[in-house]
């Protein structure tokens, strides 16, 4: 069961060498390398490269030798930095995806979108009302939605994007919040929208309005804040902060653990 490991030497980037550098030093790392079984051809911005068949688009771009500056972020499907559009051979459709989570296919023609032009109106959350007026005021273009559903088809998270824009048109903030909750703000919806809507910013507005005004408030939290303000924990903090390591250790290992049950 011993993992096979291939030693891979990674040298310092020679491009960064300067006059002060007396000699090249090698950093050695142990990196387990998957042996690529099958290669496919992809066209990165039109240029053909052979890459391992199981690569993600991001992996393929780096395998080809690009140093990504724009177009990579968390690399795990949370940040939306790597919006990518592509076509497949023999297929007229434009497809969309995140480079970090979409696998390459043979003959894929792809291009990353380095940034999405989108407006973000400035507002004061304390001066907005959690209803349709907020959308009318800040994003009046949503009312131009033609319900074509292109945004939904473009969403790499498979969110019901058009449905949440329709909910915004009705002023149903909770629905917009719920449907747009998992949005990564990659912008692919907006770049495809014939009505020029910036869906993801509408989603952020709705989520903030929901959290600020519509979510039920925690009584427990208010009580705890009062306790802290009244200095209820000051004495105990002082005691704990003065304790020796041994005293703390004793207290720590003797502490009771709350049961899992609800």
């Amino acid at each position, binding site marked *: *069961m011993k993992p096979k*490991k291939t030693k891979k030497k*990674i040298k*310092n980037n020679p*491009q960064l*060498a300067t006059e002060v*550098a007396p*000699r090249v*030093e090698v*950093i050695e*790392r*142990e*990196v*387990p390398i*998957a*042996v690529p079984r099958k290669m496919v051809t992809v066209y990165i911005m039109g240029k053909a490269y052979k890459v391992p068949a*199981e690569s*993600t688009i991001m992996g393929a771009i*780096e395998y080809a*030798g690009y*140093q990504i*500056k*724009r177009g990579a972020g*968390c690399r*795990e*499907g*949370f940040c939306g930095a790597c919006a990518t559009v592509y076509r497949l051979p023999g297929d007229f459709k434009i497809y969309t995806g995140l480079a970090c989570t979409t696998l390459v296919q043979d003959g894929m023609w792809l291009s990353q979108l380095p940034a999405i032009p989108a407006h*973000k109106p*400035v*507002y004061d*959350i304390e001066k907005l009302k959690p209803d349709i007026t907020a959308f009318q005021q800040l994003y009046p273009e949503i009312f131009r939605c033609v319900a074509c559903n292109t945004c939904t088809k473009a969403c790499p998270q498979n969110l019901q994007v058009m449905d949440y824009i329709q909910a915004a048109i009705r002023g149903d903030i909770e629905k917009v919040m719920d449907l747009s*909750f*998992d949005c990564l*703000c990659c912008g692919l919806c907006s770049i495809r929208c014939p009505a020029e809507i910036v869906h993801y910013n509408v989603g*952020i507005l709705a*989520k*903030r309005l*929901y*959290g*600020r005004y519509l*979510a*039920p*408030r*925690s*009584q*427990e939290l208010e009580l*705890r*804040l009062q306790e802290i303000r009244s200095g209820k*924990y000051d004495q*105990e*903090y002082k005691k*704990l902060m003065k304790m020796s390591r041994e005293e*703390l250790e004793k207290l*720590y*290992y003797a*502490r009771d*653990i*709350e*049961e*899992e049950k609800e």
Partner: protein
Amino acid sequence: MYPEYMRASLKKVEETRPRRFELQKSGKPVFPPMTAKEREEVLKKFHPDYRPDARRPVRIGPNKGEMMTREVADLLESYSRIDPTKFDLTRPDFETDILIIGGGGAGCAAAIIARQHGAKSIISTKLRLGDANSMMSQGGMQAAVTPQDSPTRHYLDAIGGGHFDNKPELVRALTEDGPEVVKWLEDLGVIWDKRPDGNNYVLHGGGTSRRRMHSCRDYTGAIIMRTLMDEVRNHPEDITVLEFMPTVELILDHHGRCAGGILYNLETEEYFVVKAKATIIATGGFGRLHIRGFDTTNHYGATGDGLVIAYRAGAKLLYMDSVQYHPTGAVFPEQIAGFLITEKIRGAGGQPVNRHGELFVFPKEPRDVESAAIIRECLERKNGIETPSGRVGVWLDSPLIEMLHGEGYIAKNFPAMYRQFIRYGIDITKEPMLTYPSLHYQNGGIEINERCETNIPGLYVAGEASGGVHGRNRLMGNSVLDYNVFGRRAGRYAAEYAKNVKLGRLTLDHVLEFERELKKAGIRTNRIAPILLPLYTPEEVRKRQLTARYEGTLR
């Protein structure tokens, strides 16, 4: 889809599941938690920090002679990207009250609070605003809010998890500000998971004695980060955001106070001088150094830039001998190797089991202990499962969660995790995930006090870049809390400081001095830092990158 050869092991996991379900339902620990002695043993023998070649003494700078993680010591013993003599510091390109280096959670929180205290700021960020580990946290944020909990209990959990090395005043700040942060974020529009009565829904994390992990499904970081970013962008008159403009050196004044930084435009390759009355480092961690060859859960830009520039300027570092490996990084499929599988999975009842379907560790040990136990199970006891590409891991049994909380719970509470795996034909409501520890967090960092001050006047640090809050091991959910608590504090105290400071003559002499020290110590290297971006170009390509002379920006 799992390959055929894993079927036999998957079947065993299924067979033991009903028994493990009964155990979990009892509410008692499903496996005996380790004693202090057992913890120490497993750490010493199996935690990557304790490998014989994991650490070496750093040879120059404020921590000279101290043991550090090898890759960190290498990074610190490096040359600057710039020639300081070429900069005219008397004519800054930008002037501001506060230069905030880093556009993640801590940087944004600092900018928002600094503004409320009357300070204008510039956020210098290497990639886009919000491109940070903050965006990626899934599980949640700790804060002691429930009646059966208290901030002092949170204190004890945090300091015990950190092996009692945490700085007490920082742990107090962290735990005492916690509830206030929950409220602040909700007022800004963060949507906490709620119980029907309106109180926040909370779960356990590793090493917690009370359920106190507040979450936003499993997009906690994304929801918080996007709220903070949106708020930052609502104040363009006071907060200037410079994207793709990392800070590559700090500037001091001739009294030794921090006075801004040198910014680098990643795209045009120009440098800019920013003069600032106070500076906040909020650059996050170092996962992309791939310490000991580990995969990482971290963001593309997590290259420890803040450590380098602060160290050159004379800031003291703390606990740079300790690295956090998240117990459950993905190991299969290969495309998501190293990706974070949130601790909330274990918080909700998911159990790590070996290839025989047996429990081998209490699922909620502190992270370093849990990781070491998983490594032991794979490497010493040979009870791991090997992947086709030669990795090894243990199962994290997620279907149990649906049995415990009812069908649909995973779809509702773990949409990100569900998506991550279903893309590759693995349905985590029906099959477990294969996991192994993944490089996750920089436990130490630039030493601060509870006002986020460093030993350099005018230099503040907040978030993962700072050291002392978590000792040598952070508990889950305390990093989201950390960047909020200390981001806010840094914003406030830097703004107050900026009101009164009168800067002297600006200088980069400390950079020249550091390079002289490098040479004097006989350190022969051409390493340039901050490295800004990791290098993933395959060796075959690099062999052909043979440009011998560079002309202008044609690199």
